[in-house]
């Protein structure tokens, strides 16, 4: 697609429920990243995919968080047994394999609210 697409744009869930967040990167972008941004804060790295593999998942806050990527394209971030501190905007980004100084292209994010 023309840009990075994330769904849903907003998600309100009850504490203890599982949620799935989806990211559809730019076609041809082999690198995909998940970040989390709490209100008024900076971007916290969660996980990085190169193709379908995740060479760096050091930012996942706990074992309740997992992510996968299939077909070198769509990625899903799953949060199990959500807690109130999981409330944040979850941003996905992709980048060109050639680099070329074009940086990351971010999606519009999923705003997750755990009540």
């Amino acid at each position, binding site marked *: 697609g023309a840009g990075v697409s994330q769904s849903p744009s907003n998600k309100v869930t009850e504490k203890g429920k599982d949620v799935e967040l989806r990211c559809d990167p730019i076609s041809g972008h082999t*690198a995909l*990243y998940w*970040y989390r941004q709490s209100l008024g804060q*900076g*971007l916290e*790295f969660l996980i*990085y995919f*190169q193709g379908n593999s995740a*060479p*760096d998942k050091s930012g996942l806050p706990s074992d309740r968080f997992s992510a996968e990527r299939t077909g070198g394209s769509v990625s899903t971030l799953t949060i199990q047994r959500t807690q109130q501190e999981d409330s944040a905007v979850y*941003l996905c980004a992709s*980048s060109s394999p050639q680099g070329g*100084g*074009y*940086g*990351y*292209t*971010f*999606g*519009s*994010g999923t705003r997750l609210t755990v009540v």
Partner: protein
Amino acid sequence: GQQVMQIPQYQHVQEGEDFTTYCNSSTTLSNIQWYKQRPGGHPVFLIQLVKSGEVKKQKRLTFQFGEAKKNSSLHITATQTTDVGTYFCAGKNTGTASKLTFGTGTRLQVTL
């Protein structure tokens, strides 16, 4: 782990005044990127600097990468209300992983 700090955290200027944000990394960087996030929006890539001492300009914006490749700055000349937003630097470590570590951000408010 790597930390990237920015100062100031917030700045409020009148339109026409200049603005500068400074970015400091705890480790040497292979490159540094700058992003702008408008209120309610997502970060948008502005520029990448790679070489030690590099200076790049985009209209009223001037970006610098320090000689030691551990710091950077963004200077905006004659701010406009369209410059409002949060500016993030983001660094990539030398060596391994591809991920960017984002700075803490500087929120710019511009009033008439």
